[in-house]
């Protein structure tokens, strides 16, 4: 007995004191990018008309990058992170368009994914956000698992960012094989513009409200932590004022655009122009570029821009591509100023 208690006292001796845990160490990074095996492009912009279906635009966008198989391999577990932050309906454009989410789920399954999880850590009551945004029903119908952010799905991690150190992180999002960022382009009163990089706020639990004191740095920290496989920006309907929550349809505008890229900085640099911002006004883009997360100069990413026409044909910089020709067969980039049909 004495021996045992002595042993416990010796093994579990607590010196007390007031020290702070270790501060140093490299930044935590979750990198889901695929090794680049040379897709035709790394940056695609699809511009549709008000008659184009979002699903069709998403399909064109992903195909312009070389198709979903470039990003998702057979048997992958894929986490899709739309913006499901607010208790708003699709027309209010505060959350990612449910049709866009469903289209991406579909593409990911077509590429052979084993499991697709759609989730976000919402700002308002999650059940309400997921249901009323229409994402729950559309993603479920497309076969995805829609997970609500229950408390136990978060685990405290040390991110070791500039301003983000210890935070509860949404495990479901970081435990997947591939992660697809699926933001919606919106005005944001403090950050000026929110889409791809700021969408990672939804990987954090806890009281995120402190982050706003240094919003640019924390957005950059999060984007450093999360390096997605693919970013698909929903700009079908864009919230121009009163962001990020909106609430008034008058503050939104249909833009019928989808941007897809492997580079989240480039997506934001392009996307902010949609609401009349300029990339140089967004400090988090500059920090992101300094940290080599991506580039603000999307022209360097062999961009492809596709315009969908109502007759089913597509148009890129004046070239009419008849319906039935795959967008990946059409090249437009800086080195080939004239667009051409490859086959």
């Amino acid at each position, binding site marked *: 007995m004495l021996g045992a208690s002595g042993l416990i006292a010796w093994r579990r001796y607590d010196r007390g004191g007031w020290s702070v845990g270790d501060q140093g160490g490299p930044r935590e990074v979750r990198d889901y990018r695929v090794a680049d095996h040379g897709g035709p492009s790394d940056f695609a912009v699809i511009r549709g008309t008000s008659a184009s279906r979002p699903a069709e635009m998403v399909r064109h966008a992903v195909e312009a990058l070389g198709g979903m198989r470039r990003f998702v391999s057979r048997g992958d577990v894929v986490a899709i992170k739309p913006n499901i932050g607010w*208790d708003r*309906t699709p027309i209010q454009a505060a959350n990612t368009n449910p049709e866009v989410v469903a289209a991406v789920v579909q593409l990911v399954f077509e590429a052979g994914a084993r499991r697709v999880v759609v989730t976000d850590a919402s*700002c*308002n*009551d*999650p*059940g*309400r956000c*997921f*249901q*009323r945004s*229409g994402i*729950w*029903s559309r*993603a*479920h*119908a497309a076969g995805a698992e*829609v997970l*609500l*952010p*229950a*408390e*136990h799905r978060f685990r405290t991690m040390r991110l070791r960012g500039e301003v983000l150190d210890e935070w509860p992180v949404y495990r479901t999002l970081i435990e997947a094989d591939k992660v697809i960022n699926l933001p919606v382009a919106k005005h*944001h*009163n*403090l950050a000026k513009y929110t889409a791809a990089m700021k969408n990672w706020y939804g990987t954090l639990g806890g*009281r995120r*409200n*402190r982050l*706003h*004191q*240094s*919003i640019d740095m924390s957005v950059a920290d999060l984007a450093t932590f999360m390096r997605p496989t693919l970013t698909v920006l929903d700009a079908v309907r864009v919230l121009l004022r*009163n962001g*990020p*929550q*909106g*609430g*008034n349809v008058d*503050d939104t505008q249909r833009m019928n655009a989808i941007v897809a890229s492997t580079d989240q900085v480039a997506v934001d640099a392009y996307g902010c122009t949609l609401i009349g911002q300029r990339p140089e006004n967004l400090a988090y883009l500059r920090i992101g570029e300094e940290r080599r997360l991506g580039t603000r100069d999307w022209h360097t990413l062999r961009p492809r821009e596709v315009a969908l026409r109502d007759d089913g044909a597509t148009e890129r910089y004046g070239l009419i591509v008849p319906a039935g020709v795959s967008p990946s067969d059409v090249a437009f980039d800086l080195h080939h100023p004239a667009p051409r049909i490859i086959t």
Partner: protein
Amino acid sequence: MSDLPRPLPWLGVIGQVPALDVSAPSGGPVSAVLPAPLPVEAAAPEVTMATAAAAPEVRAEPPWWASVVSKVRSKFKTPKRPGSGLPARKIIVWLRNARRVSQTGFLLLFLFLLVRTEFRGGFAGGATVRMPYPVEGFLLADPFVALMTFLSTHTIYRALWWSVGMVALTLIFGRVFCGWICPFGTLHHFFAWLIPNPQGATTGGRRVKANMTHGYQNAKYYLLGAFLVAAVCGSAIGGLFDPICICVRAIGLAVLPAANYISGRGLDGLSQTNIHALQLGSDATRDALVATVMQPRQYFFHQTWVIGALLFVVLLANRWIPRFWCRVLCPLGATLGVIARYALVGMEKDHSKCTDCNLCLVDCQGADSPQGGVKHRHDECHVCLNCEVACPEDVIKFTFLPKRTSLAKAQDTLDRRKVLTTALTGAAVLPLARTSDTIDSNYYDRLIRPPGSVPERDFMERCIRCAECMKVCPNNALHPAFLESGIEGFWTPILIPRIGYCEPTCVLCGQVCPTGAIQKINETQKLGDPVRHIEPIKIGTAFYDHGRCLPWSMATPCIVCEEFCPTSPKAIWVEEVDTPDRNGHPVHVQRPHVDPTLCIGCGACEKVCPVQDRPAVYVTSVGESRSKTNVILLETSNYNRS
């Protein structure tokens, strides 16, 4: 009781009570001559005779398991009925089993509805969020609630007319609600069985004594009287004692969150081990729990420990007085008791056949004098039928239209002076409560009522403290008030934005409110519609504490409050300023302001303000739409609108 024949001394074990005509030998204690229960082995000889030659030693030494088998068997064997041993009527035995099924079923139904009193969302749901079925159903069928609110408001609010069905049921069968349906009653029934009195175990003398009718059982009638008088004077305070309200409140606000806490901490502990299998198991369990009975996040309720502790005490009381709550305090039981005096079904007794064995009292639920020689307290009887099943003679018979001679009358039981004094108490408590710091003066500034609540005075007439709204609130915004709304408003709902704000598109609390203290509003009524000139429902107004706000006093950007402000245009607007930090360098910040004409008081800003302990923006009740007097602005005051 003193004029009744004295019962035989209680012997302690069922089945050992001799009939009256068995003559006890003088000198020895009665139990000494009782035939010992026939041991099972005694039946063995006939069987073993045939096999004796083959294996005589088997008979001499039964295998080690024989005693176990016989013990188990005797457990399942119907014990020999004592006394004359007359069997109970088949139908009654069957009905008693039906009663057990009914109790279990209704308890489960209640728990199911309670657990479902929340919004979870789903893929099949659309943009309009409602409860798919009346989760507050038990309260709608509660005649005490209906009667109380009828007396205070002179109306029957919506589905409360269901309670007429319960009155009808009681008029036919008596207090079957208590014995067959009431979830709280079933809990007490169960606990009285689970924690029997330490002296006297399950059947002994103390238990029989406790199950005899006692004067204290009248307390509930006086209490009922006081509550009804209080209702006439304009307070539905009796809801504090309604058993369904207690069930929802105690299980919903105390037991379930506590269970959530325990299971959550336990499973968290497992998932933090480094053993993969444990982690997986814990995650899977957690997912399964959250998908069924638990909530995806921990809910907290203001001062809920009091609610939990009172539940604990009243359950524990079953140890000394079985179904203490039902017999002594329950105002719903009292209401039904009054009605049950006129019920068609009742008990008829053949007093002459009673041997005073008191077996009927062992499991009597209502303590309603089922035994012979006394008048039956029909109003106390839960119609559990245990007495008729237990009676070995032919004394007790439940029947339609019983002979009224064996039933006690109200005059025999209630004391008029006591009725009068309790009624006076009910009438006197209200003015006392209302002349303290409450409704009319020194109003607590943070007494924020849920959206759609009626004006405070009417609120007191209606709110029965059932906690349905607190249970259903998806944001954990509603809490049982402690003393915030005065002693009279104990456990009425109060919105504490710091714990949870009111979700603007949510109208669930009004939907589950059974009495209309929170009216059933729809989204358009709540959010307003500028096109149709419908004003939104305001529950308060936000104010800034500039000394604590980061952009106002610390030259630090923030405006989380503005981001979360849900109105459109936002009630919070920002002023762009360059403010110097301590070194004189200008810092660009946006300073928030509230526009009181737009603020709906939802409290989202207060909830999310990063100044953790006391937020820099907070909501007080002033400006709430429901009040004509609790206003700031002239042009939006209620008098101008109506």
